[in-house]
């Protein structure tokens, strides 16, 4: 396995006294070890041991090398090279070691290469044997001596290996409200989202999670969908760790994309049936209903459908899984899944044992803090309307968001009238559908500056009560009655037929909508 100067230095430190270092971190990954010889050309990508105080002449080295020099050069009493050595700045990474023999340095460097070689070999074996990411992490505990976690894009945990109880480290590792809160905080954090593009290891936002962790993105064709994190819990994360983590990462990448079976959610069967109900119009409803019954969702239970729309711009970071899992965990009798870019939740209210009011109250802060927009269906008993409830919830959300963009939570009651009006004007505009007499009244107002429309509207709004209407309009009762007389005349109607009154009321709405 190739190693960097930082990794090697980390091990040299354990055995020798380090007098000086230059350009640490610059070497890149190195093939192996060579001895420096005056007459030989420099080989980029290797470690050079320069024994007995020898120093390569200026210009000899290239940038991607690691020079291990011994004391002689730094010894002021050595007349030959000491001052040169001190003055000499190297173009590559270099370390100066106190009083050490070449052979001793070689032994330590070889041991180090061998140690990681063995690690690499076991990882290879795991990969070839179709082993899991978890096995790889387990094999790496002796290398990192800290908990390792593979996070999904939404920072839920896919796999972890740890000798300490992670739930005591942070609420991030324990399902529940606090976990959701932290996940939201992360998803909404700019730095966190930016980090997803990183090609090299980076520190996660401890100012949110409360623990330090070095992350390395696991990418497929340039898209990050996981990150491998090294938590700084048992010992400080070293510079060497920063170079070793990407190595482990590239192995993990292979097994994850090789055999990722996606989410393992208990609700899978319910999900499947419900997805069929939503998508397959030719579905045998009796069969679907039987399936639901077998899964505990009975025909005499009450159901509600709730649709969430995600508002994140960055589609890659949609916390869909974490939202679905949260819903399933928080509400018994809830089945939550993603369907056509939205999250659909069906709740069996009978199983849930919480009334809808309470569910709604609990969901409000969740919807807000996850930056979702939500639409509720009405509550219906039985299975036959599940698909229609989904449509209803979607309509609440669509029409509601259009009519009241500042609201984030929508109910069907609030959108029913606008929706009905929208529907009836699909073929003809409102004006063409409206009561003719009312249109005449409007024209009369426009031509003569009268207020007959307002008068009639007030009259209808007050259930045809003249006294109340006059009061609201701030006019005398007789004035009001006179106006009504004129209105009846213009409209050529006695304004008594209930159907006609309904038509006029509807026409008012249609005309309002067109304005």
């Amino acid at each position, binding site marked *: 396995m190739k190693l960097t100067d930082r990794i090697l230095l980390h091990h040299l430190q354990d055995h020798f006294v380090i007098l000086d270092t230059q350009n640490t971190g610059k070497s890149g990954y190195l093939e192996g070890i060579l001895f420096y010889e005056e007459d030989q050309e420099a080989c980029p990508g290797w470690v050079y041991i320069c024994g007995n105080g020898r120093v390569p002449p200026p210009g000899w080295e290239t940038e991607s090398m690691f020079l291990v020099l011994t004391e002689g050069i730094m010894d002021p009493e050595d007349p030959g090279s000491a001052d040169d050595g001190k003055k000499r700045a190297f173009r590559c990474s270099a370390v100066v070691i106190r009083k050490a023999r070449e052979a001793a340095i070689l032994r330590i460097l070889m041991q180090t290469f061998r140690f990681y070689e063995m690690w690499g070999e076991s990882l290879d074996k795991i990969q070839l044997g179709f082993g899991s990411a978890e096995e790889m992490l387990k094999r790496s505990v002796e290398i990192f001596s800290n908990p390792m976690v593979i996070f999904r894009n939404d920072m839920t945990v896919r796999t972890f290996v740890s000798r300490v109880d992670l739930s005591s480290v942070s609420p991030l590792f324990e399902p529940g409200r606090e976990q959701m809160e932290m996940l939201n905080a992360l998803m909404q954090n700019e730095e966190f989202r930016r980090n997803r593009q990183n090609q090299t290891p980076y520190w996660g936002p401890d*100012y949110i999670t409360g623990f330090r962790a070095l992350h390395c993105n696991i990418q497929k064709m340039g898209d990050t969908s996981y990150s491998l994190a090294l938590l700084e819990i048992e010992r400080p994360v070293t510079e060497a760790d920063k170079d070793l983590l990407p190595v482990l990462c590239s192995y993990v990448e292979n097994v994850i994309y090789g055999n990722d079976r996606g989410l393992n959610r208990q609700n899978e069967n319910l999900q499947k049936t419900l997805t069929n109900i939503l998508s397959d119009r030719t579905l045998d409803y009796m069969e679907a209903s039987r399936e639901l019954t077998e899964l505990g969702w009975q025909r005499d239970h009450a159901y509600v459908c709730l649709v969430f729309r995600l508002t994140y711009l960055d589609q890659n970071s949609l916390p869909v899984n974490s939202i679905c899992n949260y819903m399933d965990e928080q509400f018994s009798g809830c089945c939550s899944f993603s369907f056509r870019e939205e999250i659909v939740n069906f709740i069996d209210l009978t199983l849930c044992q919480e009334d809808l009011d309470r569910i709604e109250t609990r969901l409000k802060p969740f919807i807000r803090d996850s930056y979702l927009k939500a639409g509720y269906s009405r509550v219906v008993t039985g299975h036959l309307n599940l698909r229609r409830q989904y449509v209803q919830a979607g309509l609440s959300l669509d029409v509601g968001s259009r009519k009241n963009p500042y609201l984030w*939570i929508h109910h069907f009651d609030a959108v029913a009238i606008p929706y009905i009006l929208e529907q009836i004007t699909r073929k003809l505009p409102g004006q063409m559908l409206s009561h003719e007499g009312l249109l005449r009244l409007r024209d009369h107002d426009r031509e003569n500056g009268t207020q007959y429309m307002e008068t009639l509207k007030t009259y209808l709004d007050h259930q045809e009560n003249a006294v109340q209407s006059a009061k609201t309009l701030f006019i005398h009762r007789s004035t009001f009655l006179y106006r009504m007389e004129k209105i009846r005349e213009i409209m050529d109607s006695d304004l008594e037929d209930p159907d006609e009154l309904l038509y006029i009321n509807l026409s008012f709405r249609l005309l309002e909508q067109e304005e």
Partner: protein
Amino acid sequence: MSLIDEILQSILYGKSKVTESLILQALEEGYQPEQILREGMVPAMGSMEADSKTSQMDIPRVLGAARAMQKGLDILDPRLQSEKRLFLGTAILGTVKGDLHEVGKNIVSIMFRSVGFRVIDLGVDISEKQFVKAVRDHPEASVVCVSSLLTTSLPEMKKIVQALKKFDKKKQLFVMVGGGSVTEEIARQMQADAYTENAAEAAYLARAFVEKKSPQ
């Protein structure tokens, strides 16, 4: 940068863990909780404005700030409570229907408790029916606080105030309104009993009302 400024910055950038530890540090260094709240925290939220060009807020960022703010409030809350546990009465509190803003309301809650009220916090997005039900369920309540941050939710607020007035025939209740979208003028028009611009004043005013009603 002063500690207070650092607290403000940490909230602006949603660094809730940093906010928590800075507030603890400030308390240790002898800052008063009221000062931290007034100078470091409230202005942080207040300074989050919509982009002047697009008039859109960076909502993920605002949510992060609100979260850090809430974490900070959780630390200050117990320290703002009066030691001599006097009991002034019960106050009911909520943000109006359609409105999900809660930070201001939560500060009102803390301030009311700090002067000795028991607070029943109904939460956000509360309809007139829910307010009236709460008042009916808690006949001991003497004050109702209605908060609104959206201009578009002012009609709801008006409905709530009217419903409460209609329910409270004996005029026992003190109905207060506030929040970013309310002004003195608007409060008067909807016939609320009181409006104040900030939470501390609201609590003092409510205390004065209760004390006047039942002088010891």
